[in-house]
């Protein structure tokens, strides 16, 4: 059923899409990590008011689909005078969505540090800042690794939705080719393989990293 000529001819297009997916995932994930880290730190130190705002943001972002978030950014915002490029919308969307997921992952790690470790730190006279710096963050980060890597994979997969705002990433490329040449078997197969090429090695690397972090700097 498969036609190798069709597949070969489409490879350059898929490579283009591949690049877009990777690039967008990369900046989106970095954005999400930064937003998440900042939010979780502000939450950890219980900065008044700001903590409340962050909670609201987290709930809003976690409980609505990325698709609608993107529609809003891309199609609805210009109506009220805010026009952002598709790529920028994608970046903001991933960061907005991913930021809350990452923040929850970091917070989970920080809160997972056991109370006895914190008591032990206080008992040798460490200040709150020192405790955070030398005990809570290093241990919390390694505790949050599994959640962080799950989020990374999740966010990469979410980029497949960007076809709705015309970003030429992998899924969009495949759907476009199907629309022109009507070879859904070949193009969908290529699409699945393309995601496997990104995600399988990545998830192996992340698993190794998780283990490293856990046994390298942490663990009882």
């Amino acid at each position: 059923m498969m036609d190798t000529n069709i597949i070969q001819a489409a490879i350059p297009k898929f490579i283009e899409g591949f690049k877009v997916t990777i690039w967008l995932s990369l900046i989106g994930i970095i954005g999400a990590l930064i937003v998440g880290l900042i939010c979780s730190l502000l939450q950890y130190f219980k900065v008044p008011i700001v903590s409340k705002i962050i909670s609201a943001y987290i709930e809003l972002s976690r409980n609505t689909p990325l698709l609608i978030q993107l529609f809003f950014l891309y199609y609805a915002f210009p109506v009220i005078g805010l026009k952002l490029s598709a790529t920028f919308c994608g970046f903001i969307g991933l960061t907005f969505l991913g930021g809350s997921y990452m923040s929850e992952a970091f917070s989970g790690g920080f809160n997972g540090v056991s109370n006895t470790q914190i008591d032990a730190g206080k008992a040798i006279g460490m200040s709150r800042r020192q405790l955070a710096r030398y005990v809570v963050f290093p241990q919390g980060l390694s505790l949050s690794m599994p959640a962080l890597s799950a989020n990374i994979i999740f966010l990469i997969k979410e980029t497949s939705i960007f076809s709705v705002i015309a970003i030429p990433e992998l899924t969009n490329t495949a759907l476009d080719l199907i629309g022109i040449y009507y070879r859904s078997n070949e193009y969908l197969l290529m699409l699945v393989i393309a995601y496997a090429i990104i995600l399988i090695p990545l998830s192996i690397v992340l698993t190794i990293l998780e283990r490293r972090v856990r046994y390298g700097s942490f663990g009882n």
Partner: protein
Amino acid sequence: MAKEILRVEKLNKFYAKQQILYDVDFSIAQGEVLALLGPSGSGKSTLIRCLNGLEEFSTGDLFFDGQKMVPTEKNWQQIRQKIGMVFQSYDLFSNLTVLENIVLGPIKVQKKSRSQAVQIATRLLKRVGLADYLQTYPRQLSGGQKQRIAIVRALALHPEVMLFDEVTASLDPEMVRGVLEIIKELSEKDNMTMIIVTHEMNFAEQIADRVLFLEDGHILENTPSKQFFVNSQTERAREFLESMKF
């Protein structure tokens, strides 16, 4: 009598609306060893955690070296360097090596130079027979080793008082002895002032100068050790001692 180092006056402690400690009054003199005994849930841990501010108390006063303690975050941080504490759970920082665990306080809190801190750590580790474990991570140690290092970590700050909260309770029976011996040595050789919560009655009898017997948050007895173990003042204390033997 020796100089009084710590005094507690009318200390009351609540969790939410539940009162845990009632008008606790006692003091400890330099070099004295106080055993804090009592049934499970009587408030022993809560009491000694109040002494270095890990728990806030509701009312009451604390005097350290004759000075009244004003319970601000800053002051507690100061006091905690003078009051070392070791817990039941092996509480070494799991992300740091043995050496880093020990020098963290001296360097970051007391602003000692690294070389000076390392020197102190090495000397103390030698003393507890663990000089070879400088670069080891806590997870590679047995429970007994961890507790000895936790003691070293507290000692590295040169505290004037040490608090021990059931430090042998989670240890394998054969590990208990090594840890208790170190505590005994601290009292005998260094004349360290100590408050010890323990369920090892034999040990308490050997080491304590005085026993504080706590029940339901009340101090029922504050008696010299010799007298307590032979002839306790209260019925309840006698019962308690009885139940600890088979």
